């Protein structure tokens, strides 16, 4: 196990790095003990980066290249059980190949942190971003967060260990980073100092749940129907508890590092008094913010709500943010074939969230940017116009629209 404390950043410093490199630096700053890896694009960029840190002697950790993604996630699960801070990750069908290990990680309450470099699922083989890969853990007890910038990738990786390893939570954390836009683009990132990180992130202590000769325990038994519901309810309760932990961590993060949105769960951009609010996740934020800014300048009451935590889903905050809008246009970088409106996963989550409101906004869904296709300012304008038309006529002609798809 790693013994030498890395001192990569004595002082806070600007770096020109990709989102993946930002996560790699976070691994070093968090003094991760065990990293497992198996190459698949675009996640592999973080694997390459931590390899270099290790080769350069800048960051000491146990680096295990597994023979498959399944083993990769099994290994961090076990390492987490003995008290090691862990990091792993994958993309697309690689993530799916690890799925048995991924489900048990949450079931066993192992606070593994994983980066999902979002990638379209095969077939066809494609490297571009879609959100269906990471989305598959949404029901299993994993935290699920969508990052929009390289800076946020670094910041949220640090938050991830803090939240996941909280003794009242102990649930794994998937950090979703859009393939290409985040994993392969280099931006100026403010890297915090080691001292700042040490103040924010306490060591991982598993306490009486730690697998150790001095604490003889068995984990992962076989059970029957007399036991399972109570176990599920415990995980459910842990997922409910994590919201308060996230809030607390977020407050301290803002205090120590001096940056961060008002809310850890959502980002509201020009939502106040907005009649039309666009909703999306990840790097979609970039063109959407630009479009919204221009529409505002033209006098249109338009806003953008970015969902950051998909799990836990901050239903009350989202209700608050969207409740006064006349129309909500949800942009899904994913699909759910055969779903109620033939639309995306995020759309149905939002419609369900807004259902209890007395006054419900009109809801439209746009499937866009699949496989890494660019979502343009014109696309966003089209969505806004469609929503405006629904407001003007009081009815929705088509619930789900595929954007910029060749007919």
């Amino acid at each position, binding site marked *: 196990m790693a013994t030498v404390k890395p001192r990569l950043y004595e002082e806070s410093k600007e770096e020109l790095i990709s989102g993946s490199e930002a996560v790699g630096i976070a691994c070093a700053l968090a003094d991760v003990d065990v990293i497992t890896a198996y190459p698949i*694009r675009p996640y592999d960029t973080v694997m390459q980066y931590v390899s270099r840190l290790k080769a350069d002697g800048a960051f000491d950790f146990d680096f295990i290249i597994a023979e498959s993604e399944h083993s990769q996630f099994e290994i961090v699960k076990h390492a987490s059980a003995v008290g090691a801070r862990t990091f792993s990750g994958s993309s697309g069908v690689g993530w799916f190949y690890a799925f048995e290990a991924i489900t048990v990680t949450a079931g066993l309450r192992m606070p593994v942190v994983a980066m999902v470099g979002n990638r379209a699922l095969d077939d066809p083989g494609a*490297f571009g971003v879609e959100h269906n890969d990471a989305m598959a853990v949404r029901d299993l007890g994993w935290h699920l967060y969508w990052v929009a910038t390289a800076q946020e990738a670094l910041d949220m990786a640090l938050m991830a260990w803090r939240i996941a390893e909280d003794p009242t939570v102990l649930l794994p954390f998937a950090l979703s980073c859009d393939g290409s836009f985040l994993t392969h683009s280099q931006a*100026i990132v403010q890297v915090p100092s080691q001292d700042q990180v040490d103040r924010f992130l306490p060591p991982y202590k598993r306490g009486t749940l730690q697998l150790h000769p001095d604490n003889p325990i068995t984990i992962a038994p076989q059970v029957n129907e007399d036991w399972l519901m109570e176990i599920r309810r415990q995980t459910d309760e842990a997922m409910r508890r994590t919201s308060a932990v996230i809030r607390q961590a977020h407050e301290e993060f803002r205090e120590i590092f001096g940056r961060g949105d008002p809310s850890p769960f959502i980002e509201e951009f020009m939502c106040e008094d907005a009649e039309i609010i666009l909703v999306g996740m990840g790097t979609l934020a970039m063109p959407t913010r630009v*479009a919204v*800014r221009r529409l505002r300048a033209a006098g249109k009451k338009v806003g953008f709500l970015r969902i950051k935590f998909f799990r836990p889903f901050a239903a009350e905050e989202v209700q608050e943010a969207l409740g006064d809008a006349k129309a909500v246009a949800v942009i899904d970088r994913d699909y759910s074939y055969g779903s109620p409106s033939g639309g995306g996963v995020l759309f149905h989550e939002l419609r369900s969230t807004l259902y209890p409101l007395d006054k419900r906004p009109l809801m439209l869904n746009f499937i866009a940017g699949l496989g*890494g296709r*660019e979502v343009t*300012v014109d696309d966003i304008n089209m969505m806004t116009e469609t929503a405006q038309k629904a407001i003007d006529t009081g009815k929705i002609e088509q619930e789900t629209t595929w954007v910029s798809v*060749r007919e």
Partner: protein
Amino acid sequence: MATRAVEVVYRGIFQRTLARNIVRQIVFAARKDGKIGTAFGRYSDSPERNGIPAKQFAVVADTALELEESLAVYEATMVDVTINVDDTMCKGLESWAWYGLQPINEVTKPGGTLIVTSRQSADALLEDIHQKKDPYNLSIIPSTVSFSGLWVFKDDHTDMRALGAMCKACPELVSIKAMLESVQEQTGNEAKVASVQRAFDRGTSRPVEPGEGNTETPFSFDMPGWKTMEEGLVIRAQKEGTGFRGGEGGYTPGRSETFKKWSTRSMRPVINFDTCIKCTLCWLQCPDTVFDITPDGLYDANMEACCGCGVCEAVCPVPDCITMVGEPEFNDNSSQYDAWTADKDGYNKWMTVLVEKQKSETRTHGFHHVGGYAEEIAASEEA
């Protein structure tokens, strides 16, 4: 609004580090000028394929807000400067994620600059570079193409010369002062700083008028929509071949009408039809069914199908019967067999000159490098 963009066009894998050095250095230097920037590769080139044209970008803005505005478009549709680090790509670019041939200057904005590393003259390059309807500038960095083999970065200061030339062509993007300071800080290498300065001092550009250049219409095709595309991810096999060019005798294989990849090659085979022993090896080993069999049993390479891999040269048992020759020697994809049948003496004379010249060329097949760095740096300083 002051946002400026640079694209670096390079040969995948072979010149990746070179391109990355250039775009990163631009962003570092811009930071010295108090600006903010981002550097990224075109993701659809990724994973890069050996030698296939690829792009990296640097985008620089005065403020973070302006940078975000410009990044609403992921791949710049207009750049202030295009830097091409292999002159054979002046013929156009085809990415591996195939969508036709793009002129090298396609996104160079009106009044912008195309910088090319080349030993060719501007006039020679403009025979390849497609015409534009707007004026722009062409700047040549006189140097041998920077290649050292797979993944190997040839530290011959091509990156530094490109940066110096870029500061000259577009001082609004990065000042030479900031660039020199930044290169010193990032590399700690005086010789590199000197290379930037020298390229800046010597940088000249030639205006290119609207309509000047290659008049060829770049190959393009319509991509099918979801209603017309066959379901089930099926790709049909190519149709069976025919007699030579559809006639009697010989053989022309079925080829895709839309999938071509000639811009991938930096060299092409030149064939001596008189010494060919008709052994079939080139035809058999070619991975791209490039060779047509002529009615008289010779092998004619189709230059719309050839990616320039050089297997034919490697397997040919006859000395100098197939020779890979640098692309700058050619301005079209016409048939060598036709040229030979039309005028055998003329063809053989042309071919002999090319083959002899090739022996003294530093560009070798497979993007290898011949000669020492020191000699090349000295030579380019004298140029």
